[in-house]
């Protein structure tokens, strides 16, 4: 510091009041605090970066799964092809087994102006259309046989490869032999897109269809219903059992070695790898109790076992957090133990219990390993009507799609992850809302 001229009075004043400053390490303390804050910021930034990477990667790969390319063309339901002998009145099987792909192929060839005699060209025209067209047109005809002989506009699913090409996911610079769509097909695709016949539509099938080896027809329907069943089973079983167990352990059970042992074991159970629960479920529910394999019921039971420790631990923590003065107040008024718990302690612990439950449910929703063991990793095409029917679950569906080779399954895998994440976000928002609703200060 430079010397500043001061009046003698000020100098005297300063000299009289300021003792020598002690070095109490202020500079060092503040520096270490600043460093710690920087570490914290860095940690958060790191976490956010990875979150951003995860989300951007999933969303950028997956958003196209919500669009599905369809070809809308006038389809002539030719009696010649479907039922050339006129037997449909007597033999309903005719309509079930008719050659619908040919109907669709002919319709598309007509729109594209392809000579029906050119067999190679016709094969490529057929390759533009999803194989699921057989089911689509069959259902249409069986529902209303009067369409036979008429021409109706139908939105047909494009083949997965055309779908991928239309979304720009197939590199057209690659040699024609080495890619799944030919130059001719790409030409037709552009031609159809120009007339508006070929366009992307919202992919409702993603949410309603079951498993399919054809990506354009594969959907999460079975997995959604299976996961829903399992979540309901987990909620209905684990919430009451878990809360009842924690209330007993926390409020009524004597504190002795035995209850200590139980507590230690519950904590250990929460850390048991989930695949072990899968084996347990396989042994107990499928082999011993004889419940059907692949059923959402068994999956729900296994996930219940897995979720119970989480709920018990969360509930006990919530009960412990209720101030003892509230218990003393109720007991002092002559409330019985049970009245104290149910009238005062439980309502105050509710936010914590609900948060724990929803976190447990969210955990269960994303659990895959135990479901693989009880056979929920199966090709299930029909939406399960009851929890006893074969089903899959969302994370298992993701696992199965991730194993598929087709390009169109890549985006569906990411799409399914997005759906799963949305469900998890919804559950967490629900947890926050419930907590707000029940939160009371004391």
């Amino acid at each position, binding site marked *: 510091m430079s010397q500043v001229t001061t009046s003698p009075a000020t100098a005297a004043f300063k000299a009289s009041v300021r003792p020598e400053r002690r070095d109490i390490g202020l500079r060092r303390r503040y520096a270490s605090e600043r460093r710690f804050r920087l570490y914290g910021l860095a940690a958060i930034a790191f976490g956010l970066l990875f979150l951003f990477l995860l989300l951007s990667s999933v969303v950028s790969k997956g958003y196209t799964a919500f669009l599905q390319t369809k070809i809308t063309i006038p389809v002539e339901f030719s009696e010649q092809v479907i039922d050339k002998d006129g037997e449909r009145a007597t033999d309903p099987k005719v309509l079930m087994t008719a050659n619908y792909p040919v109907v669709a192929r002919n319709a598309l060839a007509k729109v594209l102006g392809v000579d029906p005699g050119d067999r190679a060209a016709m094969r490529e025209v057929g390759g533009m259309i999803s194989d699921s067209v057989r089911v689509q047109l069959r259902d249409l005809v069986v529902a209303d046989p009067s369409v036979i002989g008429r021409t109706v506009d139908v939105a047909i699913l494009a083949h997965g490869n055309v779908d991928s090409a239309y979304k720009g996911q197939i590199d057209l610079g690659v040699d024609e032999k080495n890619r799944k769509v030919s130059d001719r097909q790409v030409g037709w695709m552009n031609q159809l897109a120009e007339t508006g016949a070929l366009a992307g539509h919202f992919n409702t099938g993603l949410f309603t269809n079951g498993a399919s080896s054809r990506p354009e027809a594969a959907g999460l329907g079975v997995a959604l219903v299976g996961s829903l069943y399992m979540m309901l089973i987990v909620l209905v079983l684990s919430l009451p059992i878990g809360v009842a167990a924690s209330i007993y352990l926390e409020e009524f059970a004597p504190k002795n070695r035995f209850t200590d042992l139980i507590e230690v074991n519950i904590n250990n159970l929460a850390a048991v790898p989930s695949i072990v629960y899968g084996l347990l479920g396989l042994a107990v529910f499928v082999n011993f109790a004889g419940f059907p394999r692949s059923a959402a019921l068994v999956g729900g039971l296994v996930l219940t076992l897995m979720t119970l420790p989480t709920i018990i631990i969360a509930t006990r923590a919530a009960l412990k957090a209720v101030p003892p003065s509230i218990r*003393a107040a109720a007991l002092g008024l*002559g409330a019985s133990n049970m009245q104290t718990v149910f009238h005062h302690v439980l309502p105050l612990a509710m936010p914590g219990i609900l948060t724990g439950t929803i976190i447990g449910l969210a955990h269960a929703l994303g659990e895959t390993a135990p479901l693989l063991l009880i056979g929920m990793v199966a090709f299930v095409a029909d939406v399960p009507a009851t929890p006893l029917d074969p089903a899959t679950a969302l994370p298992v569906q993701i696992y199965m799609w991730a194993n598929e080779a087709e390009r169109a399954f890549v985006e569906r895998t990411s799409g399914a992850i997005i759906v799963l994440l949305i469900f998890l976000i919804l559950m967490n928002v629900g947890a926050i809302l419930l907590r707000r609703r029940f939160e009371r200060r004391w």
Partner: protein
Amino acid sequence: MNILSEAAVEKALDKKMNDVSYKMIGQDVSVYYGDKRALYDVNLNVRENTVTALIGPSGCGKSTFLRTLNRMNDTIDGCRVTGRIALDGDDIYDPSIDVVELRARVGMVFQKPNPFPKSIYENVAYGPRIHGLARTRAEMDAIVEKSLQRAGLWNEVKDRLQESGTGLSGGQQQRLCIARAVAVSPEVILMDEPCSALDPIATARVEELIHELRANFTIVIVTHSMQQAARVSQRTAMFHLGQLVEENDTDKIFTNPDDQRTQDYIMGRFG
């Protein structure tokens, strides 16, 4: 129900003949927390419609004794009570005595105001409701109003009975807790340092209240404040290191105590 030893009853009757009636009798009361002994053979009787103050330095066992009177110690793990405590001659630790019924007869007000996080009305109505003291809504309204009036809180809260009890000031909360205890019409009210968390004005208000309640209830109050004990109580018991040093009329204790330790304590030499 178990009756106390004949000697004790005789003693009690003896006192009664001397125009003193005992609401609660404590005989050779010892309390253990696990291996630690907190009270040593305390013999202390509580007179009816009297305010009995328990004084003594921290950790002397006065709160422990208070809590044996309505068996609040039962809720503490490892706590064991020996000796006998009687309410109107019935041993309250007898297995045939229901602790819920006991606590309906011996109410308690705690050190820290602890209203339920519910409305003011619900705070007061809770006790009568679980004990079935009111058959109709109107009866319940009457109990709530009377209790709040007795606690001197009615005029302050009558227009906001549905607001949360935790939103009141500290002194109001403590009076709400007193109203809550009064609402179940107990015979004895135990107060564990009821004013330690209150400011002087709220304390004065609660002390007045204790005076008024004395007409209808027997009150036992633990306090750290000598002045408070002198102001509110008629009888005072001095505890030290888990033992009852002496028990006598408040005036006597504060002017001419028999025991040197009491003298030292009220003179502020220790504690």
